[in-house]
């Protein structure tokens, strides 16, 4: 399929809206993405025509929603090329998925003095759940550092791995710098020591092909809302061999087999980890979003975003005293930067009034900011519906910022 940017932009109704009477330039895609009409429509359609609680329902509507929910699970499975659909657990998002693993895997497999290796590039949501676990279990966290370009120093891994290492957890793509981490290499090293690996794919699945049969990681998690699906949806992929051994995370309806006051037995995968009424219409819409991404073509998306990144990096580098943080060789379409001497918050406030949405601050990665000894950055993160012309608007906006504050 040809990549028709005009057609693609018309699929996202919000993109033609104005803010402060100026055309919206939405460069905050790493925080959340906009939704195509087909995703908005399917939510409306299901609430209008089919809504009924799923599983165990005897009636038409319940069967219809159950079927659509389970079909969405298969769409997710195919999208990330997982082995079985029962390895796909629906969650509320990446944070929820990581907390589930930290709680359940951690309960079963992490003991006193054990070690978990995380990377220095992590989002707080892939740091704090492990810290909480380590406090409970008196286990330790070790940190894999990154270099000045924002690339992980994989060679350090061999010094960090020990007989006590029980898990390595890191992101596929850094949310604040855009670095694409060499996860396949890290997974191979880990597996050669029989250590399982969890990959946080929140910033990866929307930008590039993710093939879990090829990666062979033990857990892979991502959020729906960062891949054009509704908020409150997410995915946890786990290898069956781990999920089967892990205790349930939350108790409630749907996750049980037989309940008596003496003992309860649990449902099979994936339902064991989906207590309570799931966000089935959200899940159905997530399936629709992934179908939409596939129809555009993930390789077309990657190609267009690479052009945006290259153009944006070149254009913004023309501004005197602008420093880009994160210059990894392999990067997604994220540019994190500072105008020297100008606080990121000031930059963001002015850009906002020009209709340009960027994110400012530490992006929930305070250790990354500490590494560079800065309070935060301005982050422009592009999606495949963004254009070269919009980057020019950002460039002009930044010139205005410089003029105002200097």
């Amino acid at each position: 399929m040809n990549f028709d940017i005009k057609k693609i932009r018309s699929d996202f109704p919000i993109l033609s809206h104005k803010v402060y009477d100026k055309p919206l330039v939405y460069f905050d895609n790493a925080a959340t993405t906009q939704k195509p009409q087909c995703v908005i429509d399917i939510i409306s359609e299901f609430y209008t025509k089919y809504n009924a609680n799923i599983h165990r329902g005897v009636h038409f509507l319940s069967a219809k929603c159950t079927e659509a929910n389970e079909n969405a699970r298969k769409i997710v499975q195919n999208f990330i090329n997982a082995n079985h659909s029962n390895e796909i657990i629906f969650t509320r998002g990446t944070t929820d998925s990581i907390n589930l693993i930290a709680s359940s895997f951690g309960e079963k497999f992490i003991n006193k003095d054990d070690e978990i290796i995380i990377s220095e590039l992590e989002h707080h949501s892939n740091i704090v759940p492990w810290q909480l676990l380590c406090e409970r279990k008196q286990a330790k966290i070790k940190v894999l550092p990154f270099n000045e370009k924002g690339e992980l120093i994989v060679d350090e891994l061999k010094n960090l791995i020990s007989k006590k290492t029980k898990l390595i957890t890191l992101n596929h793509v850094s949310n604040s710098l855009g670095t694409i981490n060499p996860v396949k290499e890290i997974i191979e090293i880990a597996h050669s020591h029989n250590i399982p690996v969890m990959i946080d794919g929140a910033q990866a699945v929307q930008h590039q092909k993710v093939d879990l049969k090829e990666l062979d990681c033990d857990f892979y998690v991502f959020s729906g809302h960062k891949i054009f699906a509704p908020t409150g949806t997410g995915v946890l992929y786990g290898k069956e061999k781990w999920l089967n051994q892990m205790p349930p995370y939350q108790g409630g309806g749907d996750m049980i087999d037989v309940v008596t006051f003496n003992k309860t037995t649990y449902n099979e995968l994936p339902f064991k980890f989906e207590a309570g009424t799931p966000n089935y219409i959200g899940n159905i819409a997530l399936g629709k979003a992934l179908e939409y991404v596939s129809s555009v073509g993930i390789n077309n998306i990657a190609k267009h975003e690479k052009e945006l990144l290259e153009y944006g990096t070149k254009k913004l580098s023309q501004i005197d005293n602008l420093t880009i943080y994160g210059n990894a060789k392999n990067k997604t379409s994220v540019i994190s930067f500072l105008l020297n001497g100008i606080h990121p918050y000031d930059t963001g406030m002015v850009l906002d009034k020009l209709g340009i949405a960027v994110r400012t601050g530490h992006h929930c990665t305070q250790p990354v900011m500490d590494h560079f000894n800065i309070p935060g950055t301005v982050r422009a993160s592009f999606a495949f519906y963004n254009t070269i012309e919009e980057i020019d608007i950002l460039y002009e906006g930044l010139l205005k910022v410089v003029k105002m504050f200097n």
Partner: protein
Amino acid sequence: MTIKERQEDIIEEFEIYDDWMDKYSYLIELSKDLPIINNEARKDENLINGCQSKVWLDAKFTDGKISFFGDSDAIITKGIIALLIRVLSNSTPQEIIDADLHFIDEIGLKENLSPTRSNGLLSMIKQMKLYAIAYKSKE
């Protein structure tokens, strides 16, 4: 001048700006007039840590009136602090406790005070009122 009158002055000053860029330029100008907190007072106890920008605040109580001093690492925030200090400084504790800071809304800066904006300004107003309550109890 009362707190109410000072607010009305500010609203009038901002009326001539209908463009956001001009409004921000004016705030940048105002940031230069801020009664800057002195170095000894620039310590962690006086730091209001917002997620986005840092704000420092100190207060002095003389002859029954409170004076405020502040600073921020972000300039627009600093401009807004200058406005807040202009409105509230040189007032009695009771006047500050009773103050309804409607000018922020009227000059279009309300979004800067939303609890999720985390630029320290909302905490700063709270802190100013707490100073007033503390000094009032000493009266």
